[in-house]
């Protein structure tokens, strides 16, 4: 921890050094350090208002910083220091290995406009994509709807709106700092952040990751009770009430998008919280696995309405919660069997790619590679 002193006011704070932050400066978040916000808010964080004056509400110059002998645990879902740099000579072996690995595994695929002009489908050649239909099993047909989703990495700004929208749509419990610190965060969609380039001025890439709804889902095969199986429309169904909680599915999920209720996370006692919850989504109890469902309650609702009117579901009629809130419209959901749908359109683009395609999982969620158009002179400097 450090002590920050501005004029005669000082505050003890934990620090987190991130790449790309301007030298000689620090960012302090306001809004924390509260004392009377109830169970969740009280005692969390540090009250930065103590450093703030009405004369200089947003920027303060001349702050002094001093290291103090205290430790404070920070909980983060992105503790993975994803820096695309090899470990330095003085660093512990393994440091920064995540970043090196992320790059080597072609999870985020980025190109420049120049690159794109030369080779439009460059993203599809970055990893190993097995030939289509290569499998030991006879193919399954999805004759009706086939839901799919596409995420444009170029559009994603990492704002986290999708994470919050998903949380409120799907009755996802808030687990608190302790659990997050143990690696038990409960998000059905997460935004993986990767830094690329030099430590001083890295490029930051954001990649939202949710259940890929793999057509050959590794999670399903290993479930002993059939609590996660495929629907006729290609959804990777998660049946909470059938789940006994072996966690085998999570272990076998290459994307690690499944979340487990290690404790009874949902508060079942406080009546006011009952009003908060989406009545169309199960409130999960302890001991069951959960994950992104592509907002299946919305799909079902749309299907029922369409069936009552004896028509097809229209493209865009179903919006997943994450899609609905995405300010940059990076997320597109729809029927991939419909060649006219927006999602089919996105998936047909040359930039489209699947992550970990080499595992033959055939994800229904795919990505559009990120394109940058750097000004070469600016980039140099």
């Amino acid at each position, binding site marked *: 921890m450090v002590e920050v002193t501005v004029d005669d006011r000082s505050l003890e704070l934990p620090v987190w050094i991130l790449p790309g932050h301007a030298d000689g400066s620090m960012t302090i978040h306001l809004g924390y350090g509260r004392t009377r916000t109830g169970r969740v808010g009280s005692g969390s964080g540090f009250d930065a208002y103590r450093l703030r004056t009405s004369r200089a509400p947003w920027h303060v110059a001349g702050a002094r910083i001093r290291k103090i002998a205290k430790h404070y645990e920070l909980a983060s879902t992105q503790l993975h220091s994803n820096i695309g740099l090899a470990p330095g000579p003085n660093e512990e072996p393994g440091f920064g290995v995540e970043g090196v690995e992320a790059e080597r595994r072609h999870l985020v695929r980025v190109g420049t406009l120049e690159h794109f002009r030369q080779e439009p489908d460059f993203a599809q050649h970055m990893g*190993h994509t*097995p*030939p289509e239909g*290569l*499998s*030991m*099993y006879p193919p399954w047909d999805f004759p009706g709807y086939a839901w799919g989703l596409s995420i444009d990495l170029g559009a994603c700004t990492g704002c986290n709106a999708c994470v919050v929208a998903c949380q409120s749509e799907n009755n996802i419990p808030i687990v608190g700092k302790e659990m997050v610190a143990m690696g038990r965060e409960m998000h059905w969609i997460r935004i993986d952040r990767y830094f690329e380039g030099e430590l001083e001025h890295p490029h930051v890439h954001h990649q939202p990751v949710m259940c890929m709804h793999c057509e*050959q889902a*590794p999670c399903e*095969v290993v479930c002993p009770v059939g609590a996660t199986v495929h629907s006729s429309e290609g959804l990777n169904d998660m049946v909470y009430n059938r789940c006994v909680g072996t966690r085998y599915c999570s272990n076998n999920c290459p994307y690690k998008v499944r979340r487990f209720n290690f404790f009874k996370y949902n508060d079942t006692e406080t009546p006011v919280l009952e009003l908060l919850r989406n009545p169309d989504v199960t409130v999960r109890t302890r001991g069951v696995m959960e994950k992104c469902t592509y907002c299946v309650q919305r799909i079902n609702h749309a299907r029922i309405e369409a069936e009552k009117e004896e028509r097809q579901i229209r493209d865009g009629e179903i919006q997943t919660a994450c899609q609905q809130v995405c300010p940059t419209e990076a997320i597109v959901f729809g029927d991939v069997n419909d060649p006219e749908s927006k999602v089919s359109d996105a998936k047909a683009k040359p930039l489209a790619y699947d992550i970990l395609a*080499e*595992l*033959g999982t055939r994800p229904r969620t795919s990505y559009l590679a990120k394109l940058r158009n750097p000004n070469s002179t600016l980039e140099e400097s």
Partner: protein
Amino acid sequence: MSEPTASTHERSFPPPADLDGLQSKAWIAAGIGIAASLAGWFLDPTQFYRSYLVSWIFWLSVAAGCLAILMLHHLSRGAWGLMIRRVLEAAARTLPFLAILFIPIVLGLEETYVWARPEAAADELIQHKAVYLNRTAFVFRTVVYLGVWSFFAYGLSRLSLRQDRTGDATLFRRMQVISAPGLGIYCLLTTFAAVDWLMSLDPHWYSSLFGVYFLGGQGIAALAFVILVALYLAQREPMAGAFNAGHFHDYGKLLLAFVMLWTYFAISQLLIIWSADLPEEITWYLERAHGGWKWVSILLVLFHFLLPFLLLLSSDLKRNAKALGKVALLLLAMRWFDVFWLAAPSFEHGHLSFHWLDLATLVGLGGIWLALFLGQLKTRSLVPVNDPYLVEALDNE
């Protein structure tokens, strides 16, 4: 019963005279086979090299398997092994000759192995393995495998012969001490040999069970061969009086155990690869499930496992030398199919086809090998007469 009794020395077990006749027949078969193979080499060198590789691996697995079973026998000191020890030793002593017979494979390396071809340089994955999969290293390793095996084969044979002469009761202990690390080294080397000779035919594919699977197959090949030789010997003096139903019962049980083991490995590998369905692993099986290869796969399931397994369950059959011989013959034939099934789909990536060169090289190499084997067999007494366990072995019920 703990001391060798005098009766052992009274009996001697010289090789029967008609082994010579058999050997001549083997040489004739070898001549015909080799001539045909040479003709094939002129007509279709690629096919010749491929067929030759399959045939060579088949005969090698008989010989090398005999070495493994010999060491297993020394280690376990079971009475079952004594009656066939000389057969095993003779087969194992052919290993250096098989090394010479490997030369054509080296000459045709580019015809059989993708990684040895110039276009392999364009393949990223093969380039990754180039440190391991290159001509020099490949030949060097094969020489090491056969060299080390031959070393053990001759070492054990020499001690065994010395035991015949001196009757030194401590020699069996020395053979045991050699066999313990010997078997371990053997298994390790065979694993790598299987990778080199067979697995690398499809240089993109890998399976860590492959070596063990090949070992299991070798056990069957060797045992089946030994049972056939034992059956042949048991019909002639002096061994006619020595072999009894109990011995064949033991061999049958061992054969059953190896059939089960082989099946176990085969199923394990299939099940693991099938369940995970990883694109880089399944191609190997897909090749063997299409284009006619499916029928070979089914053939292997039925006749390499199911039928022999069911037959060998019966103790009456195991005690009946002739019936057991028929099962052994079937299994030996299936061993060829297995090696063929392991190798051939990776050459062409296409339809199943048999070529007459498959047969020609099999007969040619087989003739040579059998002749060499018989030549080795007839140099010694058919039973290690001074082994302390011999009486027990002869009494075996």
